[in-house]
């Protein structure tokens, strides 16, 4: 089977986010970059599916040249091919992003590469748009399951589960399909040293997508107001237990 996994390069933020002076972006001077955690799991899932079923996996991203680092990181854990839809580094809105990815998948199809499964993260860590996978699926006429934390593929069918109110909802669709996954679907592996070295040597296929901005337009970013309250120290060590239980009673979570 052929699996495509779509990832996004995002900064690896620390304890506090700082903005650039024009308030349009995160100040990334000191930050590394990674892919969103959900997508890290999507890539891992792709590798596992190919290990189990045979076939080939491809990673795709839309982003600047520097995003090839994230493509290589995916190849380092075992993804076979990489496609970079190269932009000038500006943010693309979710509508334009989905259109570009759908275009790229059509180009692949025209070249004879069809995908049984197209994996996304449920939402990007930075923009949190919650819609790219769905828009790609609609554009390609494919079924889409979102928020998946357990995926089983066999006999041309995908069976997926997602969390719902402490239990699970189960979906089943025929392939080809689009699935967006959540962190927790697996525990992604670390790249091995040979894996990293192999990834370094691999080619990245590049193309320049057509920009069709149409989504929400980012005007500026700002940091939420900090609400630093005053902390009441109930005590130290085990001696604090009665005070804690008094508190629990007071706020009504412990009936006497």
């Amino acid at each position, binding site marked *: 089977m052929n699996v495509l996994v779509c990832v996004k390069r995002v900064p690896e933020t620390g*304890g*506090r*986010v700082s903005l650039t002076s024009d308030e349009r972006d*995160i100040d990334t001077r000191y930050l590394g970059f990674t892919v*969103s*955690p959900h997508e890290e799991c999507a890539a891992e899932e792709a590798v596992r599916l190919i290990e189990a079923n045979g076939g080939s996996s491809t990673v795709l991203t839309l982003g600047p040249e520097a995003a090839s680092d994230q493509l290589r990181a995916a190849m380092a854990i075992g993804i076979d091919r990489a496609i970079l839809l190269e932009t000038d580094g500006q943010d693309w809105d*979710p509508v334009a992003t989905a259109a570009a990815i759908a275009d790229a998948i059509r180009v692949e199809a025209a070249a004879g590469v069809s995908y049984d499964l197209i994996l996304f993260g449920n*939402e990007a*860590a*930075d923009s*949190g*748009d*919650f*819609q790219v996978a*769905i828009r790609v699926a*609609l554009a390609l*006429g494919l*079924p*889409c399951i*979102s928020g998946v934390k357990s995926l089983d593929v066999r006999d041309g069918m995908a069976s997926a*589960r*997602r*969390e*719902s*109110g*402490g*239990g699970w*909802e*189960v979906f089943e669709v*025929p392939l080809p399909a689009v699935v967006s996954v959540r*962190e*927790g679907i697996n*525990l992604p592996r670390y790249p091995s040293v040979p894996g990293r070295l192999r990834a370094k040597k691999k080619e990245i296929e590049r193309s320049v997508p057509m920009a069709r901005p*149409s989504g*929400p*337009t980012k*005007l*500026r*970013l*700002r*940091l939420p107001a*900090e609400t630093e*309250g005053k*902390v*009441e120290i*109930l*005590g*130290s*060590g*085990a001696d*604090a*237990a009665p*005070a*804690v*239980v008094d*508190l629990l009673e007071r*706020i*009504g*979570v412990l009936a*006497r």
Partner: protein
Amino acid sequence: MILVFVEQDQGRAERSSLEAISAARRIASAAGSAEPVAAVLIGPGATMAAAGLADYGVSEAHVVEDEALSAYAPAAWGRTVAQLAASLAPSIVLAAGTDRGHEVLAYAAALSDAPMAANCLEVRPGSPFEVTRQRWGGSLLEEAALDAAAGPGTARFLTVAEHAFQPEPASESSPLAVHPFVPTLSEPDLRVRVVSKVAPEVGKVSLADARVVVGGGRGVGGAEAFSELEELARLLHGAVGVSRVVTSAGWRPHSQQVGQTGTRIAPDIYIACGISGAIQHIVGCKAAKSILVINTDREAPIMSRAAYAVIGDLHAVVPAISAEIRRRQAS
């Protein structure tokens, strides 16, 4: 009109949808217009749930109790909302920023050839139409303009961030008109639907709904030591939540992760044990009414979010609290 997609379960509207209705009313009143708030409800129980919305200022409800839509089918539900929006021509289509809210509205927006802005906190209708929305799980805010790509009169599709608004009953209950709606669906719309459900474990308190969450971080030290936290959670009829470090280390399953990529919790009290308070974790627990921190490090970042703290080793403090609860319950 502002049209709100209301999620309901067995005839009861979800709290998050009531929040979205409250948000809709605020948007309407802030704009100075007397825009009515309408609701769309899908699935068995829709009519019953709709009845309760009068108290929240909803003036008309469109209910879909089509047999084909009894199981959740995101594409079909999305098309339903899109079709209703096309016929009602609301200025805004709104949903809660939940799994289903995001999913249904994403479909509806895409099918309406419109953009969607997720997890909005503020909406400023007008020209340009601006929203303030969450990025990075809420640790960063974005002000964005939502152009009417398809021309004037097109609806804006928005979800509102969970816990950002309180469900507010209207001062006076208005008359509610309930209209059945029958969408036109095709087979592909129904390809994806819930084919079965796995019920929650009996007696297990869901993390998202728990009134008490006992959280554990790196400071717990290992997989075995979580039994102390579980004991306390059980005594309080609460749930155990953990930080990302804990799931990455394989100490606990990801289903217990609280944070940007895990569960968002909103308990009455969050008891954070051995958690330093990375920003990714904070965004998952900031809806807690109060936070009690148990930590050896009085300088841990999470202290700035805490209302209460106990300084000390959680392995001493947590069992002592459990013992104290048992002592009082026995007496």
